[in-house]
């Protein structure tokens, strides 16, 4: 297994006085409320299995209290599981002794926190240097790295400020630089932008996407905002009451939600901006000769003007190499965007056509 992959198997977490004593009940499937009211223990995670390949972004999503912050803290062992296995880069994290666990946290994995958790008595520079200081990276190497990351997150000129003098967005930039400065391959982001204004949040998402394109970290990104999840995540795991309900990419999640709970999340978003041509196209139609092509990774919103300008309101779809791999029509787009009430491939297009006709 490569050094940046993460794997959790059969993870259970129960909070309370004697978690081991209630584990048999938990495995039998006792409800969260019953466990709390009759046995005084809180079930945070139930049989979580998750595998994050190196270099990809795994989003963990759910409402507050669903266990997402607890789950992410298992990967650097800030929280010990009641049962289960966690391995990072092929190393069994739960088997590490105190010294090796510290070294693993110093250079293998780093973290960004929801409430920033900056050191209020240290300057921006000293905050960013913290991870390097605790592993005794000293002198010019330390200063060079700190300067590079302070610059990269857009804080040049603020090196000597204290966190209390900065706005929320800038404070989280410090948090990001602090996490990046250790050059860890894995980045845990615990609702990093949850405390920020929407506009600043969009800025920070762009910053993270830019960094990710450049650095190819393995990232576990916790959020309660589906749009953010779709913007940053390769895969999105949705957690409810400590269980993963569905773990899929954004297209799958929107087109084929596993149950009503997932639908509640997905039915409020703008499907035209999320769904891509490749996810909803039909097989290639050799009769199409439109000069206007759409590529597979275009969003439906971007594709719509081209398709509607094509003869017969239908256009060929090409992949990255320019090969024709499918066809897309305005009707097809409308059905996909309407979602829910109509589904692809069950004849609803014909019905729509007739109604429109």
């Amino acid at each position, binding site marked *: 297994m490569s050094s940046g992959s993460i794997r959790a198997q059969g993870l259970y977490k129960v909070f309370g006085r004697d978690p081991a004593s209630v584990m048999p009940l938990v495995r039998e499937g006792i409800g969260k409320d019953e466990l709390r009211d009759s046995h005084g223990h809180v079930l945070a995670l139930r049989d979580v299995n998750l595998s994050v390949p190196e270099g990809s972004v795994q989003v963990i999503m759910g409402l507050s209290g669903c266990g997402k912050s607890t789950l992410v803290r298992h990967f650097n062992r800030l929280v010990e599981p009641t049962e289960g296995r966690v391995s990072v880069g092929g190393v069994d994290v739960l088997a590490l002794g105190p010294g090796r666990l510290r070294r693993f946290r110093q250079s293998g994995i780093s973290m960004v926190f929801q409430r920033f958790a900056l050191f*209020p*008595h240290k300057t921006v520079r000293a905050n960013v240097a913290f991870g390097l200081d*605790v592993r005794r990276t000293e002198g010019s190497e330390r200063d060079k790295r700190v300067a590079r990351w302070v610059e990269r997150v857009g804080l040049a000129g603020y090196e000597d400020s204290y966190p209390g003098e900065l706005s929320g967005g800038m404070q989280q930039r410090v948090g990001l630089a602090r996490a990046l400065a250790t050059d860890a391959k894995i980045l845990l982001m615990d609702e990093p932008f949850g405390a920020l204004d929407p506009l600043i949040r969009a800025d920070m998402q762009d910053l993270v996407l830019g960094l990710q394109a450049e650095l190819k970290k393995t990232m576990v990104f916790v959020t309660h905002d589906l749009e953010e999840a779709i913007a940053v995540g390769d895969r999105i795991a949705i957690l409810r009451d400590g269980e993963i309900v569905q773990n899929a990419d954004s297209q799958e999640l929107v087109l084929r939600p596993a149950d009503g709970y997932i639908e509640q999340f997905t039915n409020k978003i703008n499907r035209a901006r999320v769904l891509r041509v490749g996810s909803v196209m039909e097989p290639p139609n050799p009769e199409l000769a439109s000069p206007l092509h759409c590529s597979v990774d275009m969003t439906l919103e971007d594709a719509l003007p081209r398709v509607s300008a094509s003869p017969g309101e239908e256009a060929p779809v090409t992949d990255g190499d320019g090969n024709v791999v499918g066809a897309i029509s305005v009707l097809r787009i409308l059905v996909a965007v309407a979602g829910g009430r109509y589904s692809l491939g069950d004849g609803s297009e014909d019905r729509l056509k007739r109604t429109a006709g």
Partner: protein
Amino acid sequence: MPEWLTSFPTLGEQLLRSVRRAFDEAYRSFSREYGEVIEAIFDPLLYLLVWFERLLLATPWWLVIAAVCALCYAATRSRKLVAWTLVTLLGIGLLDMWEDTMRTLAIISVSTLITIALGVPLGIAMSWSDRLQTVFTPVMDVMQTMPIFVYLIPVVMLFGLGKIPGVIAVVIYAIPPVIRLTNLGIRLVPEDVLEASDAFGASRRDKLIQVQLPLALPNIMAGINQTIMMALSMVVIASMIGVRGLGQPVLEAVTNQYFALGILNGAAVVALAILFDRMTQAYGRRLRAIK
């Protein structure tokens, strides 16, 4: 009515007297046996105290004033406080209390240093262990509420009259605030900041030095401030066991009914107290402002 209902049935004069006597005998023989050894252990402290007192007395008065003013400015960056320091010290000198003030300054400084050297580590230990905290809290309550004279008795029995028992009495009386506020300050460090340092693999020592102590420092300074105030309030009592300084003239004034002498020396103690208080507080505020 039987007698035990009208007057409290005691254990009996005979029994109590013999218990007390046995206790006193045991302590007396202990102090006879180990008194010299214990005194020898405290010798370095005595040297330090005597050396510092001589240094303050031998240094020309204007140099001492300049040094105190420089220290004040370094700690507080406040010209106003430096001016107030200057006026206070000049006034004390003009009223012929310079020597006694220097002696008091010496014992207060040494006691405060010892208090910090013992109190801060104890406070840190208490913040790490809840069990230690439950043991120490009542001990400190006793240290602060027990009438001072009561623990002067065994100290004087062990060391005789002089500077060392004075310092020990001052330290016992004045150490609880430093311990309490160090403990409190460390416990008040926000959980999320500690979690962040854990997440970056900080060792316990790094966490203490880089995160907990700096964030607890304003509280620790408040504890040191309290300690100095309490040490100064012990000056007169310490003079009863032979500690020279501003307390002695006060004692003399009480026994001889010299009202003016008492007021002047008392005022000098108060002036010193205000000086130290403002200095440590301004320093603490500066630490807080950095945050």
